Structures are given as structure tokens and as C-alpha cells.
């Protein structure tokens, strides 16, 4: 749909806020993988938390699992370009520059810090400004993002009045406000009740054009929503494949209450024996 046609459509109603689709957005991608890492090494403090990771992630929802201290958060931070890798290669969006990557990046860190006096809408709009969205588009983008995560009725309440789960949903809203091509979520479902987790999985399933990386401990979320699972242990990838392959890797002898958990324990134990 060209720009001309969209503008013609807007004249139907005076109060609409249609979104103009630019050519750049409908242009086909000239790169195969949104995230491509070769031998990636990232330092966290003095430790080499990510030690030789090879990744090639395309559109879809990828789950990132692993024990504590495996380097998941460090890997996510390196993918979010806030940590400079100590070695190896990392190419996002076909080797675009950092600013260009960040314009099409959405990031929700594990410790989501926010300004307590801001309302949800104000915070999302502030992040939209920081992501260099055109000023005219900011209100509309924020409204869309807030509606997508289901906080439309609390949009003008201050963040400090919201419960932990709602705050985290507001964090997801700011991550998707710029319709990112790469979405990095570190523990996004921490503090969400089961109904909200199901809504979150619905949201993930609706993001078909995005490369989503979800780092989580909740194995069921991974099983339900992710097309692909990456298992990280001690800074290396020990498993990469579909969720049912992970479930198939476990036997009854392994610890766990569900097939996914058993498969997870099996793979991690195998990695630890190395």
C-alpha cells in the first residue's frame, strides 16, 4: 500500500490517526538473520560471562533458557548493544550501525527501572522520543503499544500506583512502542499472574515480523510461545532447536515435573559433565 493510498484513506474521517507505512518498512530484508553472532565473548565485571556463542536468529520467538549465572543477561545486554563484546562478531540487522539498530530495537531489562512519578503513557512516550520516533507519531505509537499490552484503562495512572505485574507490562509496552525488528525481553513474565502470562504469550504469537528473544526461567512459557529454544550454560550454547526437541531429550530419570523441565535438566547435566 503506497503512501498516496494511505493518505487518501485518511480523508474518510477527520479524527483518525492512521499510520503511514513507509517504503523502508515494506522493503524486503536483505539479510538472512536479524541476529548473527560468531564466537561472541562478552565480559561481565571480571568474568567472561559469554564465552564463544554462535547464534543465527531470524524472525520468530526464541526462548533463552539456562541456569543462573549462565550468562543470559549478559548475552541479552550484548545483543541490546549496551555492552561492547570482548571478542567475536555480532551483527544485528545485517550489519547496520548502532543508532540504526537501536531505532528498530526493543529492550526490557531484568531489573526494569523506571521513573515512579511518570504515568504509563508519559513513560512510554518518553521512551518513544528516545527511540527517535518522529514527534508526530509518538502519541499514536504509545497508545497502540499501551492497548496491545492491555493497560489502556490505567494509561494515565502514575507508575508508582501500579502493581509489579502491571509495571512489567508497561515495560513491555515501551519495548514495542517503535514496532521493533528485534525485541529482547529479559524475564518479562516475572511477577505476572497466570492469566497475564497467557495474554503475554498471545502477544508474542502476534509478533510475526519480529525476532523476539525471551530470556526466562519459566519453562512452560518457553514451551507454549517459542518456536525455538536456545539453552545457555556457563557462557556457551548447549542446545539449540525446537521446544519439543528439548522435551524429547529428557527421560523419566531426570529431575523435573514436566517433559520440558526433564529435558532441560538432562541437557544441563550433560553440559556440566563436560
Amino acid at each position, binding site marked *: *500500500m*503506497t503512501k*498516496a*493510498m494511505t493518505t487518501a*484513506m485518511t480523508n*474518510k*474521517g*477527520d*479524527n*483518525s*490517526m492512521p499510520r503511514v507505512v513507509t*517504503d*523502508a518498512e*515494506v*522493503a*524486503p530484508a*536483505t539479510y538472512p538473520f536479524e541476529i548473527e553472532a560468531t564466537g561472541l565473548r562478552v565480559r561481565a565485571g571480571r568474568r567472561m560471562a559469554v564465552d564463544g556463542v554462535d547464534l543465527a536468529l531470524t524472525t520468530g520467538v526464541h526462548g533463552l533458557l539456562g541456569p543462573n549465572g549462565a550468562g543470559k543477561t549478559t548475552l541479552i*545486554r550484548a545483543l*541490546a*548493544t*549496551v*555492552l*561492547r563484546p570482548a571478542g567475536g562478531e555480532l551483527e544485528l540487522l545485517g550489519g547496520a550501525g*548502532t*543508532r*540504526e539498530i*537501536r*531505532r528498530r*530495537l526493543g*529492550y*526490557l*531489562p531484568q*531489573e*526494569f*527501572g*523506571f*521513573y*515512579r*512519578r*511518570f504515568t504509563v*503513557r*508519559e513513560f512510554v*512516550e*518518553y*521512551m518513544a*522520543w*528516545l*527511540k*527517535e520516533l518522529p514527534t508526530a507519531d509518538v*502519541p499514536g505509537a504509545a497508545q497502540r503499544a499501551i492497548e496491545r499490552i492491555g493497560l489502556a484503562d490505567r494509561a*494515565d495512572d502514575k507508575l508508582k500506583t501500579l502493581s509489579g505485574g502491571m509495571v512489567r507490562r508497561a*515495560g513491555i509496552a*515501551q519495548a514495542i512502542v517503535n514496532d521493533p525488528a528485534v525485541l529482547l525481553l529479559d524475564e518479562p513474565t516475572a511477577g505476572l499472574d497466570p492469566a497475564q502470562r497467557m495474554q503475554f504469550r498471545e502477544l508474542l504469537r502476534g509478533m510475526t515480523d519480529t525476532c523476539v528473544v525471551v530470556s526466562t526461567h519459566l519453562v512452560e512459557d518457553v514451551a507454549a510461545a517459542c518456536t525455538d529454544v536456545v539453552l545457555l550454560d556457563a557462557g556457551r550454547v548447549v542446545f539449540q532447536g525446537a521446544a519439543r526437541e528439548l522435551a524429547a531429550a529428557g527421560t523419566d530419570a531426570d529431575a523435573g515435573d514436566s517433559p520440558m523441565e526433564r529435558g532441560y535438566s538432562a541437557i544441563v547435566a550433560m553440559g556440566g559433565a563436560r
Partner: protein
Amino acid sequence: MTWHASPSLLRGYRTKDPTLRADAVWAVEVHLETCADCRAGLAAEVGPDPLLDQVWAALDLDHEPAPAPRRRWRWLATWATPAMVPWLATTALVTVIAFLADLVGSTSVSLALLLAPITPVAGVAAAWARGIDPAHEIVAATPRAGLYLILRRTLAVLVVLIPLLALTTWTSPVRWLLPCLVFTVATLALGGFVGVRRAAAGLLAAWSVFVVAPSLLIASPPAVLEPSALVGWAAALLLCATVVRLRADVYMRLDR
């Protein structure tokens, strides 16, 4: 690029015309990957879509939009984050306290003048420090993060503090303006190496012990704030500014 797909080719491509040869289809596809005009031409070929018309009709376009929220508060936040405000207020308070002390006391050294150069340091640290700004990590991952954002916030600090300093120190700005700027840029420069909070604390401690303490104890104005020392301050400013400019990409990452 001189070759563009003709409208007939595009039509054939769109309708999957079997008479179109495979290599022609492939050539058109490869060309469309890079040529925005031809893509627009292809899109123009597409007529009105009945599904789209239905969706437009179903949209409720006649209700009143929500009133535009207040913009001034949000615009201000792009210059000075909420995390910076308490530190700016405290610095202003400290400056006023020093001014009052000078008014009441009658020593030959002005406490306000002694503290003037280090006043912006706390504000600059609050602009880009991991522990002080709760949204630091999330802001660091945005495209505006970097030297532009940090200088913008630093400018806000200076705009607030310099007029206040001009009022509270009894001397001309010649003495403290350049040292003020030097400390601002030095906090950024040093912060790129060891983390902004540690840099700020170190600079404050060094200034207190090496300049403020001797001045107070010997009751004489410090030599570094004399007009004759301005050349040294200018050189320091140049050095720190060069360091900040050369290491500009440090401010696009997380603070150490």
C-alpha cells in the same frame, strides 16, 4: 540504476502470469528488493481491497479523541530526568547555604566561591549514572543515548546552576566559570574510564582536600581560583573535551 521494471512486467509478476519466463520473474524479484520506486509502482497496481474497505468502515472514526495530555512536563523530562531533579535541588540548596554562611561569617575566604567549581559535578553524575538513574539501562539501549543525550542533560544542569552561582558568589564569574566547566567535562571524561559515580566522588574528594581544606585552614583564597590560573583551566578544559569527544561511544554503553 538505469533499468526499471516496466508496468507490464510488474503486472505479469503480480498476477503470476505463466507466460513470463522464470529468469524474468527472478530478475524482477531481485530488482524489487532494492528499488523503492518499482515497489511503489507494484503497489499502485493493486486496486482497492474489499477487506480493507470493510475494516475502514468498521473503525469508529467519529468519537472524540482523548484530550491531548500536558506536553510541557514531558518536554522538560527530555532535558532533565526525574532522577536528576533531587540532586540539582540539593546542589542549589548547598549553594544557598554557603552564600548565607558567607553573609554571616566574616572570614577572608568565601565558602561559596570555594564550592562553586564543583557544584555541577553532582548534577552531571545524576545525568548518567547507573545507581542514581533508575532507567539508566533502558535508556542506554536507545538510539538517542550517547554523547548527544548526556550533553543535553549536562546543559540543563549548567543552565540551572550557573545563574544561581552568579548570584551567590560575590566575585566576578571570571574566577569560577571556567573551573565549573572544567569539572563538568572532567566528570564525563573520567567517568568514561571508571564510572561516572566514582569519578564524581573522586573529583569532589580531591577538590575538598586539596583546595577547600587548605583555604579554610590558612584563611587565604586559593591560588587555583586566581585569574592568573585561567590559562591552566583552559588547557584542562581542552584536554577533557578532547578525551570526551574521542571516547564518545563509551556513553552509548552502560555506565561502569
